[in-house]
């Protein structure tokens, strides 16, 4: 059964008419044409599809689109403001915290939500917060460095 679902996506109101059970991931990628959010497993085990809902990182492949009704969703496309990269994006680029880049949007958004909860994370906070976002290329050490760097940068800006 189709439902009409409105929510805020990257700061803009959007409305989709589709089956409410469908995963948010595919509604974003197909109906809404935002392909920055990646499919990696469809089971919530890899984190490539991570988006931020409210202030919380969620795995959009297992979130029914119905559950974002009237909520705010942030995807990788909405992170840079006015062409200005977010400090996390800058730091990931600066530290080469990626190789193939396929897990990167999910990594960045998971880190974004981590920093909302813990603006001054310890190394252990970062490791445990990022633990279940998988990277196959092995960019992990740089991802940690990038998050540390971004946290410091954001603290300076506050």
């Amino acid at each position: 059964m189709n439902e009409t679902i409105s929510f805020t996506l990257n700061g803009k109101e959007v409305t989709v008419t589709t089956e409410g059970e469908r995963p948010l991931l595919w509604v974003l990628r197909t109906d809404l044409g935002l392909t920055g959010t990646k499919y990696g497993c469809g089971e919530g085990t890899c984190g490539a599809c991570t988006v931020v809902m409210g202030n919380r990182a969620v795995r959009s492949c297992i979130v029914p689109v119905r559950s974002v009704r009237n909520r705010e969703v942030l995807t990788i496309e909405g992170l840079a403001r006015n062409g200005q990269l977010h400090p996390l994006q800058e730091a990931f680029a600066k530290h080469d915290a990626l190789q193939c880049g396929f897990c990167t949007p999910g990594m960045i958004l998971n880190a974004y939500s981590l920093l909302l909860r813990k603006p001054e994370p310890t190394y252990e906070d970062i490791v445990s917060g990022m633990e279940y976002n998988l990277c196959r290329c092995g960019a992990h050490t740089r991802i940690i460095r990038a998050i540390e760097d971004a946290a410091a940068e954001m603290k300076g800006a506050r």
Partner: protein
Amino acid sequence: MNDDKLQVAEHGRDESLYPVSRREFLQGLGGGIIILFATGDLGQGQQRRGERPDFNAYLRIGEDGRVTCFAGKVELGQGPMTSLAQTLADELDVSLDSVDMVMADTARCPFDAGTWGSTTTPRFGPILRAAGAEARAVLIGLAAVRLKVPKEQLAVKDGVVFDKTQQSRRVTYAQLTQGKRIERHLEQAPEIKTVGQYNLIGKPINRLDARDKVTGKAKYTGDIRVPGMVSAKVLRPPSHGATLTSLDTSAVDEMEGYQVVRDGELVAVLHKNPDQAEEALKNLKAEYDIPKARFDDKTVFDYFMDNAGEGRVTDNAGNLGSGRKLAKEVVEETYLNGYVSHAPIETHTAVAHFEGDKLTVWASTQTPFGLHRQLTRDLGMPAENVRVIAPFVGGGFGGKINFEQAIQVVKIAKIVKKPVQLIWSRADEFFYDTFRPAAAVKIKSGFDNSGKMVLWDYTVHGMGGRGAKLFYDVPNNRTTLHRELRNGERQHLVKTGPWRAPDNNTNSFARESHIDVMAARAGIDPLEFRLKNIQDEKFRAVLKAGADKFGWTPAKKSPSGRGYGMACGFDVGVPVVLFAEVAVDERTGSIQVKRVVCAQDLGLVINPEGVALQTEGCITMGMGYALTEEIHHSDGRVGDLSFGTYELPRFSWLPKIEMVLIEADDEPSKGAGEPAIICMGGVLANAVYDATGARVFQIPMTPERVKQAIAARA
């Protein structure tokens, strides 16, 4: 300038074998300077098939001064988009941001065999440099005429040629190429820059694709949208070897917006949305005939060894009988390594779009030209009517040499006459993967009173010999590979294929474990034992540099309890040594890797940052096959179809990683994408032994296996 040395060749060849004709290829490029060049290894491969190309990459300096490099290589994450641009910019003396890379498009780039085996930097790089040098020479020649200054008096910086004696006399590459059309075919390499002349080579450069990848703009195959496109999901058979005996599609046929297609064993559901196509698969009723398998992932090793065919001796020196006589002690052990999956985060994906008599395929593949060749042959289409593009690829590791998903989607698109996108599910990815083969390595070896090895009899079952060639100096040695069974049957029941440094991970695990077993029996420190038995100076330098960095000291007793291990390896011309420190929880059998030091000799390093990234990637990924990753299967059913049971390395596993590069700027460049991974099994097994006194003969070293080894220790 090398005018006289340069031969501008006339080329007679069969245009039909090319994706696009040479003429078509070069038309539409506009003016500027075009340098065509051929890489040696590809030339040979082509020659064998009677399709010798006269060039397989080219670059152009446009009338706007921008440089475009067209190359058939694929950006899988290993960084060629950056390192090739860096290489070319240096040789041409232009800024890095004036270079555009066009890669992996069969209609725009000339033939390339594929992106694998750490060949991009060592083989493609030097020819690209030669082409850059040639283009620079042409431009300097033009500038000399324009400025009326002898060539020797000219220098170039950032794409501007100037008179060294009077810098205001200058002309840009753009001004020089304006209105010109110069085509050069590079047959003899011109002089390239040497150590001391580089501007960019050897400098750490950030990835050029980073901005697109951190903003979500980077396009992968799954991000391709073609008007009218539908999504397909394939019905995965329950096992390898299964045949479809009946199929009832009626439940899906009745659903609006869905379509079922079948082509032999290939069954797919189509819908405009991939998630809905996948849901609908559940409504298909399929029955299969599943044959009994001869072995499973546990019995495979004995099966291979008990039913071994004749084998092929690949190395043989001295006399094994004399070796046995000289030996103070003979040590015989067998080492096992299971099936592993490539598990890239991007699953195999492809889009097929037929338009009239033309076909365009986008595919996440390491072999766009191989796919092009197969499609052309399967469909009986003229080569120039088929175009294959590999956009950004989300990891390959050898697994995307296989392009089965593209073959499937083309079959489907041909039937439904619409553009179709196929994204393998994670379970599909695990199931259809070409796994790294399980293999057993039997080693019988001996050492004399002085700790010198005198016997090495090395037998491999189940895989090939990359990394089996011995770099220790043993006078009496033999290496035998068994890749067939006694009755001539193929060994593996599931598909197998290259996995990052194929064979070498298993060969190095076996060899380096065994070296430590011998060192312990001989009562000699593992580093000293290796130095006693390796003469090669380069290798010794790497060993010593790594040991220094790690701070290796001989232990008072063995095992020392420190949890220190080391392992050597040799891959794609690179000597590599790893040192590691681990902690083992004897109660749970779990292993924490605390520190890894990697020493390697990569020759001239183009991008130290890229090398560091690749090396860290090797070490991190290598922990997976050493500790957890293993594909279970029985009766052709794959037991691990998700990350729930197939465990990849995660953040909490990270050791402190340090590296040492031997300075060798005057040596040719080597690829860094594979060597460091080959020692991970061996170095961790040796460190676990040093920590616990338990020798683990099978990787991955799961907690279960570690506990068994602890229970069995002497």
